[in-house]
């Protein structure tokens, strides 16, 4: 386990911080699950942070000049380069602190990008910045399509979903690929912290963001972000969707700390994926057979994560049993030595 997380203090649900770095009054759609995830992540970090935003929904809804919803320093440059920009901010803070030009460099940098800005056009910049080990928290707000431009598919759009560029038709089921596994790509960079979060599990989300801020080096957090506008469900269902996605195993909540998987919320009795799919019009065209394919894929992915996290469990168990054994042996040796000493003194 990371040293930085040794004395980790979770948020107390009864005493959550009151300060909202992302103010109310922004222009997000009614029931937006994405802005909820962003607001919670920002709240977890508080007043002392710098936000670097990619172009996307969260950028346009929060920054239309002359207004801004941001109470903390915020920088937007372009769509595909937020990780590179954040790397520059990180490097500047450190070298300027070293040269005595500024007083502090321990300010968390929160990078905010959508699934398009992360999985597609921003993937190269993200990979480069992760490889270089910049100290930032990259928050991918995954609403599973290009919502800002009018619901076009991204490589994070799930199998079977209808978007304006993956319409179902005589020859098409809709989106015909399974979504790109971004957390796994982040893990492959061997960064210290990767996590998935959901706005329906707000304490889990905030705690993970706080953990990410304590760890040195890059952290990647993948946030499930229901989009009533793009997913075609009632605005009041955003949190319900986020919860159902976890309960149906569509979006398992897990952490990967120094490469070790921890499944945070096991769902031994999952709800069928149909329950999640049927509330969204983007999946309305799917047949029972199509849903069966999705169910199988979800089962397989969940099993994969579960297995990875159990490997850690086994290893932890083994390590702790082994340690107990050693401790016992040590104690026996100490006792024997003490006994010998006493006998010698006695003589």
């Amino acid at each position, binding site marked *: 386990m990371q040293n930085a997380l040794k004395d980790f203090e979770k948020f107390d649900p009864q005493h959550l911080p009151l300060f909202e770095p992302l103010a109310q009054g922004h222009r997000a759609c009614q029931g937006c699950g994405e802005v909820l995830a962003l607001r919670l992540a920002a709240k977890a970090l508080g007043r002392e942070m710098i936000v670097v935003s990619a172009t996307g929904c969260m950028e346009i809804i929060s920054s239309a000049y002359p207004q801004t919803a941001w109470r903390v320093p915020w920088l937007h440059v372009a769509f595909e380069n937020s990780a590179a920009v954040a790397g*520059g901010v990180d490097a500047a803070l450190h070298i300027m602190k070293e040269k005595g030009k500024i007083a502090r460099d321990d300010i968390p940098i929160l990078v905010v990008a959508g699934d398009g800005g992360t999985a597609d056009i921003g993937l190269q910049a993200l990979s480069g910045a992760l490889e270089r080990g910049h100290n930032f928290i990259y928050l991918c707000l995954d609403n599973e399509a290009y919502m800002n431009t009018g619901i076009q598919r991204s490589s994070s759009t799930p199998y079977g979903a209808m978007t304006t560029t993956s319409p179902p038709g005589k020859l098409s089921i809709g989106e015909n690929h399974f979504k790109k596994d971004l957390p796994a790509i982040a893990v492959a960079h061997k960064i210290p912290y990767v996590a998935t979060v959901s706005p329906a599990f707000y304490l889990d989300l905030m705690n993970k963001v706080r953990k990410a801020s304590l760890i040195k080096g890059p952290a990647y957090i993948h946030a499930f972000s229901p989009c009533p506008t793009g997913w075609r469900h009632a605005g009041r269902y955003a949190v319900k969707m986020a919860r159902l996605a976890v309960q149906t195993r569509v979006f398992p909540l897990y952490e990967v700390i120094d490469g070790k998987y921890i499944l945070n919320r096991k769902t031994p009795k999952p709800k069928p994926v149909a329950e999640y799919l049927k509330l969204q019009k983007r999946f309305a065209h799917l047949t029972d057979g199509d849903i069966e394919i999705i169910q199988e894929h979800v089962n397989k992915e969940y099993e994969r994560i579960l297995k990875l996290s159990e490997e850690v469990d086994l290893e932890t168990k083994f390590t702790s049993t082994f340690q107990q054994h050693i401790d016992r042996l040590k104690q026996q040796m100490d006792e024997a030595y003490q006994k010998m000493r006493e006998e010698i003194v006695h003589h």
Partner: protein
Amino acid sequence: MSTRMPIEVSIAVSKAVQQADVDVIAAYPITPQTHIVENLSGLVANGELEAAFINVESEHSAISTVIGAAAAGASTFTATSSQGLALMHEILFIASSLRLPIVMVVANRALSGPISIWNDHSDIMAERDIGWIQVFCETGQEAYDAIFHAFRVVRDPTVQLPMIVNVDGFNLTHVIEPVFLFEPEEIKDYLPEHRQALRLDIEHPITMGPVGVPEVYTEAKKQVEEALLNSKQVVMAAWQEFGQRFGRSYAPVEAYRADDAEVLLVTMGVISRTAMTAVDRFREAGKAVGLVRFRLWRPFPRAEFQEAVRHARILAVIDRHISLGALSGPVCLEVRAALFNLPDHPQVFGFVLGLGGRDVTVDDFCDIVERAERYATAGPEGDYTLIGLREV
């Protein structure tokens, strides 16, 4: 005292960057920019330059990284060429719109295709509208000095714009020239400390790079243009003080044997030296030929240029970029635009040469002058003339 020594121009440039107390350098290798950033990374590795050197994964990320660093308040530098500059294209406009003081060297090289690593100006001529201050250098000394000018200008609180120093690839970057190099204490107080009024600061949170709705977009662009136009005074003041202190004077437009010239060559960059030899040759033959060279390209030094060419009858404007489908190269187009509304302006003829590293010779300039004179009486052959085109 500064000492004059033979040095590769790329190394001289990196030494100037070293002396400018830069904080963050981000770069991606591309020929012929490489020697500059290699040397800088060496200086950082040896502790001779206290800076963060970030090896990024593309030029797009190089410019993005220096933007992030500059927004955080750091003094920043990057360098690129050709395809690398083209890859930065989208972000260059944002750098000036964010009013960030970044210094970049462009080792000018042809744009693909076909792919060519050799010198011309097609990379930078595709970036005319980006809102950066831009200068062109003729010699190694000028390139070295220009780095100090650039850092001084971008650090001026009234400017807050990025600046490009154009250094011709290979023909200048890789040439060993005698250059006066400063001792650190000599140049130190010429450069102001890097202090950025607006930066990402938790004590004074600001929103940088917001959405420009139709009601504000026009004004936002106009503000950048005003800043760019106003920067000329600061650039000229920086040159003036430099001249007074170190004896090397610079002006937005340089003239060579131009006062009484009937025909003027109009050039930029390193080929101007070859053009001056051609001018000398004509002068020896008793012909009134001179040369005018742009050092400052953005903002366009209209008044200085008009003044420099006022008495000439014919201008032969050289472009090192072919603007496909246009009426001539971009320099010639702007020269025409600068003169068109003047009552008695010279005749202007456009010439394109030295593309993709094709050698530019004294004879080429003699040919250009003779053609320009012929065009003035018999009319031009087409919208512009491509010099040295071989029959294929």
